[in-house]
């Protein structure tokens, strides 16, 4: 084994551990942030007891869930039931492999890219992986052997498949401008001007589809507690439930990171170090998620489908058309 490979291997491992750790930390802080921000928007205080201003609340929640009895319904399909939460959380986490969170830095004489790996088809990788998450939800809905879970599972599979499409199409405009599928190139292309200026329509479509993709309000139908009790995770308890919970937040962070990468200039920004800029933009996106949740009611299932197929899909195709047209005009 030569030295170069060893260094490469070590750097990769450190990066993976770092990103994984940071994402986990973000999930934890996101849970706290969501509860706090929503509380303040709703004229209440939110968690206050565990730690200063409830800072340790997510940890307390985690510990509580960990020690709860883990129930598997007798008539559930056991293997799928156990596999489902894993299937949701893993894709949510591994998407981060291609997201650049900073410029090249020199550490101990070695050039290190602040991205776990720069694949030349990063764009496709992101979508291939993130659409895997649906399987987990469908499996959870089916394996629970519960009617509410089943309805939740059906809803979410239909919803996620529909919106995956517009989600992908909304980014095509950016890919056309960058002329590359690599996420590093996408970020580098935004050094002067962020893509949100060039692709406002694309950004709008992306945001809308992203909400549907991660099952967040106003598209949180699969887990609409007023209709389907808790949707696909009705029968889940203990750590399995916590895993679903984590997956939801991880997904939110992932789609926010993609939004930052594709539209908001990635790590570019004046004065502050790139990583800080990346985190700032990411936090802004996540804040937006919470803000929307505390403002809007929930759409109905058929309306959501109509909206996706009859409005968003034509709009995203139109966006691609316009982008192509302008690119040809400009030469």
């Amino acid at each position, binding site marked *: 084994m030569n030295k170069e490979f060893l260094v490469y291997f070590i750097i990769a491992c450190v990066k993976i551990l770092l990103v994984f750790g940071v994402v986990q930390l973000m999930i934890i802080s996101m849970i706290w942030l969501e509860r706090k921000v929503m509380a303040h928007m709703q004229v209440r205080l939110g968690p206050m007891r565990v730690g200063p201003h409830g800072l340790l609340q997510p940890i307390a929640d985690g510990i509580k869930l960990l020690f709860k009895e883990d129930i598997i319904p007798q008539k559930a399909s056991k293997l799928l039931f156990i596999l489902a939460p894993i299937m949701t959380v893993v894709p949510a986490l591994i998407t981060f492999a291609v997201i650049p969170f900073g410029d090249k830095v020199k550490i101990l004489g070695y050039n290190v890219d602040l991205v776990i790996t720069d694949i030349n088809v990063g764009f496709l990788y992101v979508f291939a992986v993130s659409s895997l998450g649906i399987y987990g939800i469908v499996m959870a809905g089916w394996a629970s052997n519960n009617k509410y879970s089943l309805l939740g599972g059906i809803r979410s599979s239909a919803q996620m498949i529909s919106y995956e499409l517009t989600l992908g199409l909304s980014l095509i405009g950016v890919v056309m401008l960058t002329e590359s599928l690599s996420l590093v190139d996408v970020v580098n292309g935004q050094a002067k001007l962020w893509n949100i200026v060039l692709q406002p329509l694309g950004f709008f479509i992306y945001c809308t589809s992203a909400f549907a993709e991660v099952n967040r309000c106003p598209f949180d139908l699969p887990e*609409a507690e007023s209709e389907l009790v808790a949707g696909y995770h009705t029968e889940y308890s203990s750590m399995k439930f916590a895993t679903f919970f984590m997956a939801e937040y991880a997904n939110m962070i992932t789609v926010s990171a993609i939004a930052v990468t594709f539209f908001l200039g990635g790590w570019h920004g004046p004065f502050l170090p790139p990583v800080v800029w990346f985190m700032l933009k990411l936090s802004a996106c996540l804040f937006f998620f919470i803000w929307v949740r505390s*403002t809007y*009611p*929930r759409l109905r299932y058929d309306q959501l489908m109509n909206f996706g197929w009859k409005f968003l899909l034509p709009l995203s195709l139109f966006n691609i058309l316009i982008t192509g047209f302008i690119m040809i005009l400009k030469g």
Partner: protein
Amino acid sequence: MTAIPAATTTTHLMTINMGPQHPSTHGVLRLLLELDGEMIIKAVPHIGFLHRGVEKLAEYRTYHQCIPLTDRLDYVAPFSNNLAYALTVEKLLGMEVPERAQHIRVILCELTRISSHLLWLATHALDLGAMTVFFYCFRERETIYDIFEMVSGARMNLSYIRVGGVSRDLPGGFLEKTRNFIAEFPARLNEYETLLTENIIWKKRTVGVGVISAEDAIDYGLSGPSLRGSGVNWDIRKAEPYSSYDKYHFTVPLGKNGDVYDRYLVRIEEMRQSNSIVHQALNILPSGDFIARIPNITLPPKEDVETKMESMIQHFKIIIDGIKPPKGEVYTSIEAPKGELGFYIVSDGSSHPYRLKIRPPSFVNLEALPKMVEGRLLPDVVAVIGSLDIVLGEIDR
């Protein structure tokens, strides 16, 4: 591709049990739903999980002892229940209530209407996913409950209204606190409306959902905002004024289409009107006695009981024996927040009602639910249940 022959594809209806522990059936309503996919083929409400036998219990209590039972019917609007019962007994006795008491009753009943509608709005919005409105409404409801606590000492089961008036005079500081509340409430109401009324998702969820025509609404015996949402102008406060409601200026908001959205608009506007009624009532509140002083029916003043032998005996007699109204049958109804709340009493001349029948608005309104939801989607059920504003306490009794 070969087409699948029609004979080989069979669909099965899925029967789903919604409630009684379901989060959005507002208490312990149980709905049996037959679903084709998410479409509702048949909806059957099952009730009775909260049955306490209030009507039967009343037969073993004196007329005064029945008042706490009425609190527990529509437990989010106890004043209205108290009032409806007291009015019925008063009609049976053929007695007059002092003016001050009448206006106090109006103030409290309209505050009750606001608090009941606030709870409706909060839960209705929460059912449709708008979480924030819930907390805003509860903030204002809390203020109203503080006022109630000042008046009666309790927050929920108030039992403040008595046969012949109210149990005691308004406490000091009441007028000021209520004035403050009604001064700021319209602005709060606008706040809720910014979140919902023109919100495109809110409209998508409510416009054209759970439609019931004016004829159907009358045929089903709907009352209250659920009836007025369909455009039927029927408000007992206007049609058969009680408790000097004829002295107030207010309009009865009406809907047009009879859908969830119109019922929403009607209730929002009703809160504004109630606010204005309370405002008027505070301005014209006369001085005088808060309860009619009729021996053998109402208790003598407390000071007299402590100082005069006759008053003490009278007090003792009323508490032990109760009041003995003449033989007869009587029905009175009022416009409770949820619709027409009626009490029917049969008296055999003894100190207990021979029979007490309650006409709860929610019970009748709920009967229209299957008609409103059949052929629609599962999410519409929660929207429609919310818009009917049912309380299981008075449905099951």
